[in-house]
């Protein structure tokens, strides 16, 4: 399991500190407020602003 339920409970967007949704295909974590998507690479969530992109 790449990103555990426990980890998802404490991970937030590094900018707005809002909750994140795991994308259905498991490729990233999307902020419920700013819509930034943080990629998951090699099972590691990349929670860096410079590596996120805003998705509708």
């Amino acid at each position, binding site marked *: 399991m790449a990103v555990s339920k426990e980890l998802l409970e404490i991970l937030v967007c590094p900018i707005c500190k809002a909750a994140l949704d795991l994308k259905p295909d498991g490729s990233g974590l999307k902020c419920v407020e700013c819509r930034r998507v943080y990629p998951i690479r090699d099972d590691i969530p990349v*929670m*860096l*602003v410079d*590596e996120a992109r805003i998705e509708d």
Partner: protein
Amino acid sequence: MPSRTSQEQFDRQAPQYNAEWNEWNRESLAWLMEHAHCQPSHRLLDVATGAGFTAVAFAPLVAEVTGVDVSAAMLEKARERARAAGLANLVFESGAAESLPFAADAFDGVLCRLAAHHFVSPAKFVAEAYRVLRPGGRLLVADSAEPDDAPEVDAWHNHVEVLRDGSHVRNYTASQWRGFVTDAGFALEALDEVPESVPITLRAWLEKGGCSGEAAAEVRRLFLEAPAEAVRTFAITPMPDGDIRFQWVRIALAARKPG
């Protein structure tokens, strides 16, 4: 801003990263362990975990350790270290110290060892550590430091550090650290200078920073011409084989979030 980001520096250096370098300051690890008051139920965050040396050392004492770093290549090293140690209670994420991707009150302890000199804003890091700690949780920091009230030593040391590694921002004094933690709302429990038993040699130190050629020659010249107060403070000693031995000043602190 530093001339090179920590992400660039450590992605570049990770393949050569030598585990023996972590032996340079085992004393600060022992100090942090002694002051952390770990419980088996605790969840810890290790900020700028790098190759995971500190995170792996704490993992057997607690329920879980989360390690964050800006360098994906260093996190791969950390995961290898956790696997080799047979530990399953470590998780790693890419994240920056000044904007931590964690909910408020998520951790019982925040660790940061030998890394804060790379942070663009240690004050922001300390404020973020305060936010993610539960009330009563502890911040534990160890880092290279400058002596208080010694501007010449401070200037010389930070100059050679930046020449050797462009992602070095600066080493702070004990007074500055006291300010960072108390300004953020922490109650400082202990702040000590931590002696080092193993001296560093200039060749190994330059290698660790990936510093070679003209920059390395300039650092070497600066060591040989170091101000007398810097020679005393860091015990800078030329050796018969042409290398130079020295000991940096390290400080460690423990601070508690009230509540």
